[in-house]
């Protein structure tokens, strides 16, 4: 994956098992979002990305994507927007009763029922993020790709949203996400990949990766890792002077 002479992704070799949750971490510009978009199949690349033995770009798969910066359509309300996720399952025809029921349930679950007639353009950042995740979940995807799914959410909705994603994973879907909040990422994902300058720095089970020296290296030793009484790791940024 290359922009001019700059390789956003370079010599990557990953194997993502079905039904797993993989979390990409790393500093800004490490290539996390580029990797997500390449997985999606909408970016040209050298090499090969294969799902079930089929090159991704050759086949539009049921892959849901939650972008960090979505394009907000003018004049569209929340229920209409979430219904977009059902278009393919409805065979591109009129929306089925099943779809209307599923969208209804999803809006209830994501606490969005009350704002279903609001224009998406008028939502706050956190509300929009929940709407985006609702749209992705009603797709009933086999692979769910999320770019910073919790960055705009308050603490309560962070957990609620990650729980929804986890329940999708338990029903068999594969999850790949980026997350700046490594602590939160380690709580849900069983595998963490640290990326730096388009390469994989470390790849392993969440607990092992989070305590590894490579994590500190990736962030220029500007983080410190603490362990709470209940054994959960917490990662915080440190200032130069300390």
């Amino acid at each position, binding site marked *: 994956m290359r922009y001019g002479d700059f390789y956003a992704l370079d010599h990557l070799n990953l194997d993502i098992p079905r039904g797993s949750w993989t979390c990409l971490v790393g500093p800004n510009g490490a290539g996390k979002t580029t990797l997500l*978009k390449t997985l*999606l*199949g*909408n970016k040209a690349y050298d090499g090969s990305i294969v799902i079930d033995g089929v090159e991704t770009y050759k086949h*539009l*798969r*049921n*892959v*849901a*994507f939650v*972008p960090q910066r*979505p*394009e907000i*359509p*003018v*004049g*569209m*309300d929340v*229920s*209409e927007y979430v*219904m*977009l*996720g059902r*278009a*393919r399952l*409805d065979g*591109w*025809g*009129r*929306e089925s*009763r099943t779809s*209307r*029921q599923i*969208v*209804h*349930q999803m*809006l209830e679950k994501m606490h969005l029922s009350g704002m*279903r007639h609001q*224009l998406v*353009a*008028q939502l706050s950042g956190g509300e929009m993020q929940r709407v985006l995740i609702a749209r*992705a979940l009603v*797709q009933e995807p086999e692979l769910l*790709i999320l770019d910073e799914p919790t960055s705009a959410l308050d603490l309560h909705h962070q957990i609620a949203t990650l729980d929804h994603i986890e329940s999708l994973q338990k029903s068999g879907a594969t999850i790949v996400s980026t997350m700046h909040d490594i602590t939160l990422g380690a709580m849900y994902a069983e595998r963490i990949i640290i990326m730096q300058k388009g390469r994989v720095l470390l790849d392993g089970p969440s607990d092992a990766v989070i305590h590894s020296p490579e994590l500190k290296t990736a962030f220029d030793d500007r983080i410190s890792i603490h362990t709470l009484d209940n054994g959960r790791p917490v990662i915080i940024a440190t200032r130069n002077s300390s």
Partner: protein
Amino acid sequence: MKSQEIDRIWHWRITAGAALLLFFVMLLGVSFGPIPLDFFQIVRTILGLDGGLQDEERILFLQLRLPRVALAALVGAALATSGAVYQTVFRNPLADPYLLGAAAGAGLGATLALTRGNQSFYAALPLFAFVGAVLAVLATFLISGKSSANPATLLLSGIAIGSFATAFQTYLQQRKSEVLRPVYSWILGQLTVADWQVIKWAGFYIVVALFILIRMSRLLDGLLLSDEEAFSLGISPKKIRIIAIAAATLATATAVSASGLIGFVGIVVPHLVRGLTKRATNRALFTVALSGAAFLVLADLGSRTLLSPAELPIGVITAFVGAPFLLFVLRAKRVLN
């Protein structure tokens, strides 16, 4: 009991309402004029019942009024639908059917036909206009080259091609100033040429193009999002964009070559439908087509009757009524938020 499903995003009743509106507006269109025709006799004539129109009235209805109203409906449907589609494809609420140089290309083609000056070229004017429109849009695509997948590049190329074609047209028309009047009146749009021959060929292209666009309406909805999001919904944005632009351009080019340039329909009608139904989805396309047809039939009625027996150019009516109405809807519904 609390409902366990959300309301339909698009209800067939809205479409049925628009169809009913079109039917009544067309009935108005064929009955009004210097010689008024009776409503019930018209319906009986259409249904082939006894007691329909007789003699001259029958000829007036079948050979003049009906083809004219039918052409207005076809052109209105074509312009409104392709306007809505361009607005989706370019993610720009101000996009109109003439955006990619179709209008300027058609104008150049028409001027070329008129400057030849003899009758056979006059008859070929629609063909010239059609070819001009299609060539201009093709040129727009070729110029933007590889980056034609990017809406903004395509739009700017369209503006460049449009300016070029208009400049060339002005040059031709200055060299032969006697064509100024016919060119000008063609540019303002006219439906006086309507006969069954025109309706047959224009109807064919327009119906085919609109059928394609309406069938792919939920695919078009994906283009309202970013390309990555569209892709993740199972839509191939580049392919859909090209099919949509091709079909909308075919409809526009046909409409322009049959009736000249009729502005504003492609912007007013889609926004009206979206504003009144509070829906952004392209599921509205069929309703947009029906409403566009009704809008232009009404505008044509105005152009025939306001200064009767003289005729106002229909483009003047659509802009005159359309512009304030559009502003009203935009303010009331804040469609552009």
